[in-house]
Structure formats: C-alpha cells, structure tokens
C-alpha cells in the first residue's frame, strides 16, 4: 500500500467520524420564527424532536403562540420572544388567541 493510499484511508475515516458527530449535534437546532405584520414567518416549519422553536415578536401588539390542543400557550409582548423545545413527534397546529387569523404549523419528526 502506498503512502498516498494510506493517507487517503485515514482521511476518509476522519470524515466519517466528523459527519456522525456533526449529525448528532445538528439534531438540536434552534428554529427562529418571526412574528411580523400579524403573521408567523415562516408559517410552516419542519423540525425534529429536541429542536427548539423561538418566536420573536416584531409587531406593535402582543400576540400568542397557542397550541390548538391547549398543551402550550405563550403570550409574547412586542420585542419579546418565547421558546419551546419539542418533546415528541407529530403535527402541531397553533394560532394567536388574540388574532385567530394568525395560524402556524410545525411538523415534528422523531
């Protein structure tokens, strides 16, 4: 085996190690949702269990992020944020209690 080839195997091994470690870290993502002009942006989110959603209210009035199943309900004042760590997989429909024309969806994968 030539020196060049051996170096190549070592390099590949290191890449695999990095990518496994990388995907484990990438699992705990923070997903930003802006609340602006009476809308959640983005409206639809794809996330994984363990990810954290952060809603930032850039509007002039208070809003809520309220799960339709009532399991969580955050009141978010202007220039404030709210945080939620996703604990289980499933489809979540949420809305603003004060302005029910504001609707959002989170698709949580295992």
């Amino acid at each position, binding site marked *: 085996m030539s020196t060049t080839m051996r170096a190549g195997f070592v390099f590949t091994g290191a890449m695999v190690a990095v990518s496994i470690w990388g995907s484990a870290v990438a699992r705990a993502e923070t997903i930003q949702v802006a609340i602006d*002009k*009476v809308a959640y942006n983005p409206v639809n989110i794809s996330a994984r269990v363990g990810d954290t959603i952060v809603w930032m209210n850039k509007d*002039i*009035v208070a809003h809520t992020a309220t799960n339709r199943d009532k399991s969580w309900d955050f009141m978010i004042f202007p220039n404030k944020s709210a945080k939620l760590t996703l604990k289980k997989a499933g489809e979540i429909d949420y809305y603003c209690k004060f302005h*029910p*024309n504001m609707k959002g969806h989170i698709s949580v994968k295992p």
Partner: protein
Amino acid sequence: MMLNKIAAAFATLLLISGAASAQGAKLNDAQIAHIAYTAGLADIANAKLALKKTKNKDVRAFAQDMERDHKAVNDKALALVKKLKVTPQDNPTSKAIAKGQADERAKLSKLKGKAFDKAYIDNEVAYHKTVDGALQNTLIPSAQNGELKSLLETGLKIFQGHLEHAEHVAAEFK
C-alpha cells in the same frame, strides 16, 4: 331584532363611507389619521364599559385585548403624526364614528348580564366589520404617506383578527 341589527350596521357603514366619500379627494392624511385614531378610541371606550359590566370570562378577555391592542396602535399613530409633523384633523367621518359608538354605549349601559354581553360582542362584530371596510376601501387607498399607509395596513390585519375573535365569542351567545 336581527333585521334591526343588520339595518343599524348598514346605516353605520353608509354613514362612515358616505361621510368619507362626501369628503372625496379632500380626505388628507391628517384627516385619515384622525379617523383611525378616533375609531381606536371609541373601541377602547367600549372595552372599558365591558370591563366594568361583564362577568363572562371570554367577553372580559376580548375586552382586555381590545383595550391593549387599540392603545398600542393609537400610540404608534400618535408617534407617527408627531414625527411627520402632522396635526390630526377632526372631520365628519371622525364625528360620525365617535357619535355612533357613544350612542351604542348609551344603549349598552342600560343592559345587564348576558343581555349586555351579547349586545356588546354583537356591536364589536358590526363595528369591526365597518371599520375594516372603511380602512380597506377608503382610508388605505387614500393615504399618501408611506409610513401612515403601512401602519393602517398592519392595523387592518390586527382588526381583522379582532373581528374573527369577536365572531368566536359571539357564537357562544347564539
């Protein structure tokens, strides 16, 4: 009873849009700002009356939202007219709105309990429909200043949310 309500709402709509169109091209930003601000003040006064009288938790929550949101929007409007060095101008449309809602409050203040709750929330549905219509069809298209137009557009989305919220609460009393 229902017909009376529809007729009353329609009359208010005619009064507002009629007064606005009678002013025609003369409706300037100073007047538009005054109309939007007056409409907000009237709804804050309605909310304060409801908070004094209601014992229903959904009506109370709705009234608290109205007081908080309309104050926030009006504070923004005041800051904007100050920045633009515009003095809001009283006009027939503002007067029609203020008088129309003062008359409604006079009627509401004679009611109690569930009758009050239902009449308050029905008026909120009708009033938000009227104001949203006036914003969409008259005030926003007429506004010249970009910042005022943008504030009115955000206001419209907020008030469309109020209308939907009011309709949910009103459904309880059907």
